[in-house]
């Protein structure tokens, strides 16, 4: 029986790959969870594209400041050592390769590392992109955190994205509720799988062909 990981369990797995001292941007949605589960033994500097380095946790109720919000427009705090800068400089950091790790959500990821995470339907809603494209092209490592399939069970890991791209050939690693996969020269390579899941089962919910090395690890479901 397939037992997908919870969002928090996936976040914990992502957090394990973030080294002490890293400069990290967490995308809106699931990736934000990562900030809550990084251990206190690591000092991580969180970047927000509206002009903050060194973001701390959410403020205590009543302590919110409308001029201190993150890219998701939620109130945050600033740690000692943090600082403010303008938008253009915030994107110098992103585009210029100064962010060590960008964690992004995804609608689709292709086996060549293409990312689609900004729009699914051009007709009924105005298109909106925000900083997604800048985050995808600029970070030293681009990690994607997503459910393995859509809510109605369609695969998100594909030979080729059908949705409009955010950026081409940028994704380094994908963390889903079923597996951790690297994007290599020959496509997706499975590194870890949820406990109890077979290779056949994982391949059956993945449209792209998966590579399985000998030493696939087991994901911690907690």
């Amino acid at each position: 029986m397939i037992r997908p990981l919870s969002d928090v369990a996936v976040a914990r797995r992502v957090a394990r790959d973030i080294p002490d001292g890293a400069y990290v941007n967490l995308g809106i949605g699931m990736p934000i969870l990562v900030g809550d589960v990084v251990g206190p033994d690591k000092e991580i500097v969180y970047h927000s594209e509206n002009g903050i380095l060194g973001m701390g946790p959410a403020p205590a109720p009543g302590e919110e400041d409308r001029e201190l919000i993150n890219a998701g427009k939620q109130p945050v705090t600033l740690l000692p050592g943090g600082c403010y800068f303008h938008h253009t400089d915030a994107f110098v950091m992103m585009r210029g390769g100064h962010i060590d790790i960008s964690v992004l959500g995804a609608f689709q990821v292709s086996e060549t590392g293409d990312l689609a995470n900004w729009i699914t339907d051009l007709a009924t809603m105005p298109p909106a992109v925000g900083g997604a494209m800048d985050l995808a092209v600029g970070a030293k490592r681009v990690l994607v955190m997503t459910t393995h399939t859509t809510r109605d069970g369609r695969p998100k890991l594909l030979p080729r994205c059908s949705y409009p791209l955010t950026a081409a050939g940028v994704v380094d690693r994908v963390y889903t509720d079923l597996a951790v996969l690297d994007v290599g020269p020959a496509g997706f390579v499975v590194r870890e799988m949820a406990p109890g899941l077979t290779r056949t089962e994982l391949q059956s919910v993945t449209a792209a062909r998966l590579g399985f090395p000998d030493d696939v690890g087991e994901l911690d479901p907690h």
Partner: protein
Amino acid sequence: MIDKRVATLADAVAGISDGATVLIGGFGDSGVPVELVHALLDQGARDLTVVTNNAGAGESDVAALIRERRVRTVVCSYPRSMGSIWFEELWRAGEIGLELVPQGTLSERMRAAGAGLGGFFTPTGADTLLAEGKEVRTIGGRPHVFEHPLPGDVALVKAHRADRWGNLVYRKAARNYGPTMATAAALTVVQVEELVELGDLDPEAVVTPGIFVDRVVEVAAS
């Protein structure tokens, strides 16, 4: 004597013409020059091109300008915030234009205008819908999109403190687009929470030098 202080919000927005391109600071609710936008609403200029990160939300500021059919086109990165109902309604009806620009490119294009540059190549947006119709050049083995400068006739900016020379400091993440927009417009109008004496701002900590500012008006913090 240099004195960029004006007495009223009406004085601050005097002379903005129909058809003007207006750069409006702010990211979500932070750093939005709400009172200046309302003064522009009262002032009456129409057929505006508005450059701003979001397309307004609720019934206030940019959303009100859109609701009153004063905006011909919005140039922005994320017109689909929670509560951006007026933009969405007019967009669906085909009554308002949208030029969607990745957030970092939006900021960088305004910087190019302010810096007197003729345009730049950026990897952001390459291989995506937002590169369609644009010049693409491979630089360092990677596709780059050519982007044009984006100047404004007017910039409306919110800052924290100003002196009579127009030197500005901001508060926390309210800084966002302000410093860049101030450089990019022929007329830069700033609302501040506090006017201070010349010499009261630390010369090492001025964020926007007064050379980029034309008018400042004091508006008590709300």
